[in-house]
């Protein structure tokens, strides 16, 4: 579905097969754990059995003496690093916190916190050896949720941490609240006093994991010349290089990160866990070392996203939202850095809200340090706001999509940050959902209900660079540095082919290591098709300009007399003089030598993404099971470069949201042990749990991109939590304010009602 006129593209909008496809369906693609090197040894990591404990001593002597053991490392092998902020792309951390997270220093702050690493001739010997490491702990009481952590008498994770308050000052007392921020505008109290309806509720969500199928891995070779080579599955090879440089105190030029294929990330494979440990082990034993996590490690010791507690109060007068007051407290895990600010800045952005007061608390707890997860912070916050909006629509007797349309933000509407929206597709997206077959079909039968919700995500820009080398046969090698998680090789090759007016198959993209291309920020923030696409476009224009100059040289005319159209060069006044891209590509030696185009951007106009979801559910009142009967997602994608891959992002994000809404949670015992750290007990959706996911592609081109591209990947996970809660309310009359809406919770809450 197209809502705005767009140019007649030749490649953009088609559905070609991805360049890396055959390797991936035949098992030949090499992921991080697939790398085998001469002399490679394996390792294992000892992890804390306690959620909160002081580390009194670590004795590695017995492990070091075991047969097959080559090296043992602990935090003391890491250099001391400054408190410098490291922004790896989605979520910042300080170098010293990252260092303490990689290998625990004086305290273990969550169960699974890495204590020591071992390298051995095989993984079984390494696993045996970590059991021989003697650690003396002073076990401390853990804090496991934000309410407990914010109490005055709460055990402190770090006695030296004080709250950074909205005024920029630090609190007098030490606290688990790392930061409190506030956005304020207008006069909420006056708006509440004049309102027709005010609704107010509290909400809770649990920590959840990205759930990528490939566990983390890291392979390192510390060469005898002091250079370090690392093979890893990461969303950003340059982010890994930068983190390693800080943690190991090496110049970035000495570190080469080779990005292997990646088995999913969703934000969770931006930070470093195993790579620095493998590097230290390799330096100590003089051989390449490979570390891989098992699934329990992935759950317990990588970064999930925050659970938290939220309070919301929204007022309506004459069908318009007049005031919103929301307080968000998110778990950061063991070190500061939850996505609470992103949640705060997103949740009201689809709407016009003049009077607002939003508080955001970043709270440390004895759980793994959170990492980015697809639109980090926004799904939780929207779970709160979009349910309150549903309630307001009901109380005022307005259709819930019409209520959203009546209150929609548009070009010029200011977000709570004060930034005005550029051209956005919020209204078009709501209208697309209103016009859908799904929304116009009746929902009938007992225990069935329909829910809707909207969502917003900023999308990111950041830095990308590419090089495109023209081959004598008219094909092009595109050298890029953006990790391809779901088809970006294809979407970038398509944009280059479009710019050059050549066939998609004529462009061969390759993702290369950090020595082989300029800096590229992470594949995250839904930025790659947009920002790396812009770099590709610039490289294409660069090639066009060079080709025009070379044609001028061949035809002995001025460059101004030549135009580049549809993959060919033409003399504007002499129709005899034409040359195809391939013909000129074959004349490189006689026209100045190898032809390379270069694109380098700091992309600053990502174009925000909006999605509106419609879902039908059936609730079994006896078992508490919620079935998804039908699901439709409408989303403004700007321009769908590869519509099938766009649909895939939409469908995948929705299904992660369905899991979050209905089943997924980190389930903790009082001792701080995660009791469901396996795919059996942390239940992600299977094919049997789901219907087909219907997609409606809305295209309101992003004015900040040559082809109108907006980021696509993240916003689909924002609405499902609230959309499903709204549908379950429609089916049962009961509002679920705590996630997940699991069979147990449904039975308990419905039973208590009766």
């Amino acid at each position, binding site marked *: 579905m197209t809502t705005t006129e767009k140019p007649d593209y030749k490649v953009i909008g088609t559905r070609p097969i991805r360049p890396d496809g055959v390797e991936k369906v035949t*098992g030949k693609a090499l992921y991080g754990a697939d790398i085998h090197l001469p002399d490679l040894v394996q390792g294992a990591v000892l992890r804390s059995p306690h959620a909160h404990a002081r580390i009194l001593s670590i004795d590695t002597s017995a492990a070091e003496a075991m047969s097959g053991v080559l090296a043992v490392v602990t935090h003391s092998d890491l250099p001391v690093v400054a408190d410098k902020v490291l922004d790896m792309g989605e979520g910042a951390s300080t170098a010293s916190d990252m260092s303490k997270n990689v290998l625990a220093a004086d305290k273990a702050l969550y169960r699974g916190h890495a204590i020591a690493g071992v390298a051995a001739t095989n993984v079984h010997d390494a696993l045996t050896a970590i059991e021989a490491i003697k650690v003396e702990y002073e076990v401390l009481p853990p804090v496991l949720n934000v309410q407990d952590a914010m109490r005055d008498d709460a055990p402190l994770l770090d006695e030296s941490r004080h709250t950074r308050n909205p005024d920029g000052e630090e609190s007098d007392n030490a606290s688990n609240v790392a930061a409190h921020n506030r956005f304020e505008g207008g006069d909420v109290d006056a708006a509440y006093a004049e309102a027709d309806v005010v609704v107010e509720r509290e909400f809770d969500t649990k920590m959840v994991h990205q759930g990528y199928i*490939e566990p983390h891995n890291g392979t390192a070779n510390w060469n005898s010349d002091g250079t370090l080579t690392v093979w890893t599955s990461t969303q950003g090879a340059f982010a890994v290089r930068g983190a390693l440089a800080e943690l190991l105190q090496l110049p970035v030029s000495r570190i080469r990160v080779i990005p292997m294929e990646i088995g999913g990330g969703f934000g969770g494979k931006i930070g470093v866990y195993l790579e620095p440990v493998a590097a230290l082990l390799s330096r100590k034993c003089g051989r390449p070392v490979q570390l891989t996590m098992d699934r329990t490690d992935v759950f317990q010791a990588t970064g999930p996203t925050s659970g938290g507690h939220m309070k919301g109060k929204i007022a309506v007068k004459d069908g318009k939202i007049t005031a919103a007051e929301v307080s968000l407290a998110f778990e950061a895990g063991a070190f500061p850095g939850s996505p609470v600010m992103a949640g705060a800045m997103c949740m009201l952005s689809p709407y016009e809200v003049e009077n607002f007061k939003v508080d955001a608390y970043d709270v440390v707890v004895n759980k793994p340090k959170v990492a980015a997860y697809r639109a980090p912070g926004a799904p939780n916050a929207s779970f709160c706001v979009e349910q309150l909006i549903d309630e307001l629509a009901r109380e005022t007797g307005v259709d819930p999509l019409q209520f959203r349309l009546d209150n929609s933000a548009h070009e010029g509407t200011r977000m709570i940050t004060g930034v005005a929206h550029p051209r956005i597709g919020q209204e078009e997206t709501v209208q697309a959902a209103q016009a859908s077959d799904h929304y116009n079909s009746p929902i009938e039968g007992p225990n069935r209900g329909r829910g809707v919700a909207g969502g917003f995500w900023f999308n990111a820009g950041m830095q990308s660079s590419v090089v495109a080398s023209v081959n004598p046969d008219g094909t092009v090698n595109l050298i890029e540095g953006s990790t391809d998680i779901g088809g970006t090789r294809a979407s970038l090759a398509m944009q280059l082919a479009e710019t050059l007016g050549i066939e998609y198959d004529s462009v061969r993209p390759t993702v290369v290591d950090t020595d082989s291309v300029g800096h590229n920020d992470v594949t995250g923030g839904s930025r790659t098709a947009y920002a790396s696409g812009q770099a590709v476009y610039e490289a294409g224009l660069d090639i066009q300009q060079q080709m025009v100059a070379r044609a001028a040289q061949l035809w002995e005319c001025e460059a101004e007399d030549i135009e580049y159209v549809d993959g060919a060069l033409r003399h504007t006044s002499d129709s005899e003089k034409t040359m195809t891209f391939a013909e000129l590509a074959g004349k490189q030696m006689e026209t100045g030598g190898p032809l390379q185009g270069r694109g380098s951007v700091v992309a600053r106009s990502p174009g925000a993404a909006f999605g509106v979801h419609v879902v039908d559910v059936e609730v079994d009142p006896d078992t508490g099971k919620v079935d998804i009967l039908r699901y439709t997602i409408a989303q403004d994608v700007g321009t769908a470069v590869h519509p099938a891959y766009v649909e895939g992002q939409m469908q995948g994000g929705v299904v992660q949201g369905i899991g979050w809404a209905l089943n997924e949670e980190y389930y903790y015992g009082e001792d701080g042990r995660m009791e469901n750290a396996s795919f059996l007990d942390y239940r992600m959706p299977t094919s049997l749990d789901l219907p087909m996911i219907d997609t409606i592609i809305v295209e309101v081109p992003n004015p900040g991109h040559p082809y109108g591209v907006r980021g696509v990947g993240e916003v689909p996970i924002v609405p499902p939590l609230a959309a499903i809660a709204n549908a379950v309310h429609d089916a049962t009359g009961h509002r679920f304010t705590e996630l997940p809406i699991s069979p147990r919770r449904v039975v308990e809450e419905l039973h208590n009602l009766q």
Partner: protein
Amino acid sequence: MPRRTHIQTTLNGEEIDFLCEPRQSLLEVLRDELGLTGTKEGCNNGNCGACSVLMDGRVVNSCCVLGVEAEGADVVTIEGVADGDTLHPLQQCFLEEAALQCGVCTPGFIVAAKALLDSEPDADEGRVRHWLAGNLCRCTGYDKIVRAVLKASEMEEVSA
């Protein structure tokens, strides 16, 4: 080092032998001893299906099978699904239907789906969803995977 056992088996149509420790899983043998890394480890306890291989025509999680159990068996991995340069219809349909994103679960899905279509070439959507419930995918939401399997089931090479 524990004593290693000599195992003879058929792997992707070829008779081979290998040595393995009793504690090594078939997954570990395939990946670390035989260099066949197309079979992936996602959980190592039988919950995700990324390590699916066929043993005597049945889908098994190779992380939950010992290497020594391959003695005398007929094992097919993702590396044995295509016929030389000719992709299996499932592989072709996964590409055409955009049924993979990161691709790490893809080998397991293709192997599991092959076992289904080998025995039930007319499987419908409900049957496909039920059969593939042992394979986790976190990227696609399964929509395009199910469509790819159904499309492959309609191709002549499979239904013949």
